[in-house]
């Protein structure tokens, strides 16, 4: 019975099958071509870029759910992404520093007491901001599962409190956008302080080293993270599709199109919005928790309001209101960005000067974004509508 519902669901949503197919092909290709298990044509750093891109696709799906489907233009989802990264980063950094301390203490005259271990770890981690005490918020940093739970709980709670306050007083439209932006700014400013307990503008670093896996080469780690990200993306994709195709999905689309009418029909609009807001915040946090071990470092600049606006840009370019649109937009723009800003693109010599893509890429992106908004509101995903329809409804 369960099975039939699931197959029916898959059959009704061919995009899932296509997406999973494409994703598996990419995964197999990268695994074969990569360094860890395969023949090593693709470099480890590029695999990391690809893995990070998959995480960005995940948060783009979250953004699409909350904006494309529910009509809430949140400029704060990158804050949840960053919070997720910070939560996992705390464990990575603490556990690894503790291991280093333990190794260094082998030759000490006296074996270390628990208090001495925590002092040494504190100095290692917080010496850079002039502290040595381990702040209260690091209480669970030693416990892997607790910290994993925090990846979900902390951003979820922040989103819940913020969303509950905002939706309850019916802040919506552009006001909500500005408010979410203010929330992001407040969070990043807070994290910039040295006494925030998260190492101020130094952020958390060395996250690419997984505690206990020091002997495993980065090439293997990177491909594992890539595959894990792909798996998470697939799960998120299916969840997102399921949500949008369900009755819940119809209601939130109704809220997007005419909030007042949905409210008058007797639905508790605020609860639906809050549910979507918190759910997408959690997706963003999970994506961040997968992203930052691949990036290796997280600092408050990552949470700056501009990052969340870029996220909206990706989703708009990819095509709002369709899950695959978000994926296409994020993958397309972020890969193109890293191609142009990475200095790989050839410069274009003109008579009066040279166009260096590292300098002019943002200009191009900015203007192309204006063009997409003006002339192709459906984004790249809109092209799919012009294709002959696959399968029936």
């Amino acid at each position, binding site marked *: 019975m369960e099975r039939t519902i699931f197959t029916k669901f898959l059959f009704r949503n061919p995009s899932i099958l296509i997406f999973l197919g494409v994703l598996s092909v990419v995964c197999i290709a990268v695994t074969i071509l990569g360094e860890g298990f395969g023949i090593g044509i693709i470099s480890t750093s590029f695999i990391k870029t690809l893995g990070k891109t998959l995480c960005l696709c995940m948060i783009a799906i979250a953004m699409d759910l909350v904006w494309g489907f529910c009509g809430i233009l949140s400029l704060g989802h990158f804050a949840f992404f960053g919070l997720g990264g910070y939560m996992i980063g705390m464990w990575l950094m603490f556990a690894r520093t503790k291991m280093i301390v333990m190794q260094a203490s082998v030759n000490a005259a006296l*074996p270390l007491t*628990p208090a001495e271990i925590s002092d040494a770890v504190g100095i290692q981690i917080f010496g850079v901001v002039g502290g040595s005490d381990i702040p209260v918020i690091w209480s669970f940093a030693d416990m892997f599962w607790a910290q994993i739970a925090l990846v979900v709980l902390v951003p979820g709670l922040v989103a819940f409190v913020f969303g509950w306050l905002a939706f309850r*007083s019916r802040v919506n439209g552009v006001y909500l956008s500005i408010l979410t932006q203010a929330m992001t700014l407040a969070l990043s400013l807070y994290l910039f302080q040295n006494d925030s307990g998260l190492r101020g503008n130094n952020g958390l670093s060395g996250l690419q080293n997984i505690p206990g896996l020091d002997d495993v080469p980065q090439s293997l780690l990177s491909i594992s993270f890539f595959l894990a990200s792909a798996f998470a993306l697939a799960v998120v994709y299916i969840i997102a599709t399921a949500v949008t195709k369900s009755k819940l999905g119809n209601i939130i689309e109704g809220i997007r199109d005419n909030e007042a009418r949905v409210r008058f029909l007797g639905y508790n609009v605020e609860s639906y919005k809050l549910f979507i807001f918190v759910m997408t915040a959690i997706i963003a946090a999970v994506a961040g928790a997968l992203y930052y071990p691949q990036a290796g470092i997280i600092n408050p600049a990552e949470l700056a309001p501009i990052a969340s606006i870029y996220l909206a840009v990706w989703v*708009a370019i990819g095509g709002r209101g369709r899950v695959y649109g978000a994926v296409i937009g994020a993958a397309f723009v972020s890969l193109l960005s890293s191609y142009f800003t990475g200095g790989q693109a050839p410069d274009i010599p003109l008579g009066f000067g040279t166009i260096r893509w590292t*300098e*002019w890429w*943002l200009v191009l992106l900015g*203007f192309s974004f204006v063009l997409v908004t003006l002339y192709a509101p459906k984004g790249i995903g809109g092209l799919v509508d012009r294709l002959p329809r696959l399968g029936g409804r």
Partner: protein
Amino acid sequence: MIRFFVRLFLLSLSIAIALPAMAQSDFEEVLSRNSKLIQKSSSKTVGPVLEELQNFGSNAAENFLYNWKDKALYFIKDTGQFVYVASFPVSADGKKSAVLRHVETGEALGEVLASTIKQVKPNSGVRAKIAAAMVPFQLASDDAELRAASLAALSRDFQSSHLLPLKKAIEVETLPDLKEQMKRAYIFGVIGYGRDNAEIETAIYSLEGDLSLDVRAALNPLLVSQVLVAKQLPEDVNLARIIIPEKTIKHDDGSAGRQSLMMSSEYELSLAASYDLMAAAGLAPPFITPDMRNKILIAATVDGRIAGIPVASLASEESRNQAYQALVDNGTAPPMVGEAERQKAVASAVFYAVYDNPSAEVTGAARTVLKSINVRVGIYKFLDLVLDGLSLASIYFLAAIGLAITFGVMRVINMAHGEFIMMGAYTGYVIQLFIPNYTLSIIVALPAAFIITFLAGVVMERLVIRHLYKRPLETLLATFGISIALQQIAKNIFGTQARPLTSPAWLDGAFVVNDILSISNIRIAIFCLGLLFLGLLVFVMKRTRFGLDTRAVTQNPAMAASMGINPDRINMLTFGFGSGIAGIAGVAIGLFSKVTSELGSDYIVQSFMTVVVGGVGNIWGTLAGAAMIGSLQKGIEWFNPSNTLAAQTYMIIFIILFIQFRPRGIIALKGRAAEE
């Protein structure tokens, strides 16, 4: 023959020099007694000599000091006698000789070979000491400038020997200004170096209500205190405060106080610190800290064992204490003081602080005066805070006022608003490249910035925003695209480093009320500019045809169109007007902050919040919003001045909460205009 003459010459010379030496005057006696110290002086040893010369007080002594300082003092190598040199004539055969003068009388002493005398070369440290010693002479000089200069030198390096000459100088001083300055310097001198407690007290009371920094700098050293411990409180001391460990805090004036909620201050003595004081005073056996214990343990390790206990088992405090106790039982380590014993010992002793100054009258006077000064300082600090908040508010207002039109009136979310501010600032910079006169260039830059950003705004409205009036969220995204493109273009043209936009000299100074309260002229100018804009905007919107049209079009475009207003044209002009004002604001903001391509994005979130908090669609609301955000931020900073980031964070959180309760801002529109 020649040899004879030379001999004769030398003979006569020796007589000439020997003669005055026979009848030695008091002054010469002082010099010859100190000749070694003067010839090879160092700033450490020269003090007594200078004092002696100073006490001598004659013109000769003053002259001597003057020449010594200017390296015009010589001595004869053989006798060590000090002389001045009138000139260095060179004889026909190329020998250099020196014409000598007497150091006291100035009379000629004849001529000797230059090689027989030696110059006294005091180093810079000594010369500074000499300069200080010359002060009393100069204070009595007829030259007012010299008196003023010597007073300045004296204030820099006051010495107790200056008191008397200064007092005399005050009595005869004729210039009222200089006399006042001398009196003030004398008061500080008495406080610092006076011997008579009653006189010091009077001097302290005469400073009551004076807010300048040097008054506090003069009074605070009187209230320096030392923390002591005893079994019982001694009676014959100038007690500053009694310290209760882990309870009382130390005030600036040396008295003790209780912790309060308003001011987060740590208690003065922790339990550990108090016990350490006792141990240092010999009132208690030293406390064995974990560090010391560990060191003793490590030192006692033999073959991986300490007193028979294996080292590997010492991974906890308890086991370490047990191992240490074993050492104590062996008699190889001093006994440990337990936590309870430590508390008991601390409770049995009295901790107190004693003023360095033994006179209770003096410290009491200093405390009274400082207290009254601090009250006034507090008032002025509050006024300063208000001014700070006001000036921050006017900056926010200036940054947001263009937005009050484009967002507030037209409801266009223009994320590129910050870039218009940046364009205005860069316009000012470019104009300064062509017009070197800063005043003129600012006068040109203001309208130029308006025109350029007005045109940019018009172009943007025609090409982009016009097509998105029905889709406000997408306006946000499209204008954001323009914003990053404009920012990057500015970066490509002007580079990433900050460009200077220099303010004219008349804006450089500050309006100074006293040492605490002052406001820079630029901030006053920005405040005035903000007021001017407010007036202009209210006038344009309420009293002109253009304003009427704008209000009509934003309320109901179709109806306005049917009345013969062209909505497209009005929208375009309104948007251009708002953008142009942002450009002028950019010139003003560029004057006090660095002009970079990120200048605008630093203000964009705050600007939007200003408009939203104040109430969309109302210029007075923007003013209220800016006032609230500016004063709030400064107010929060006041509690924790070192941390402006925290202030901004809490301010934003406050705004988020504020919007929960007044979603439409401080000044909310009512009726039809609010429908949306």
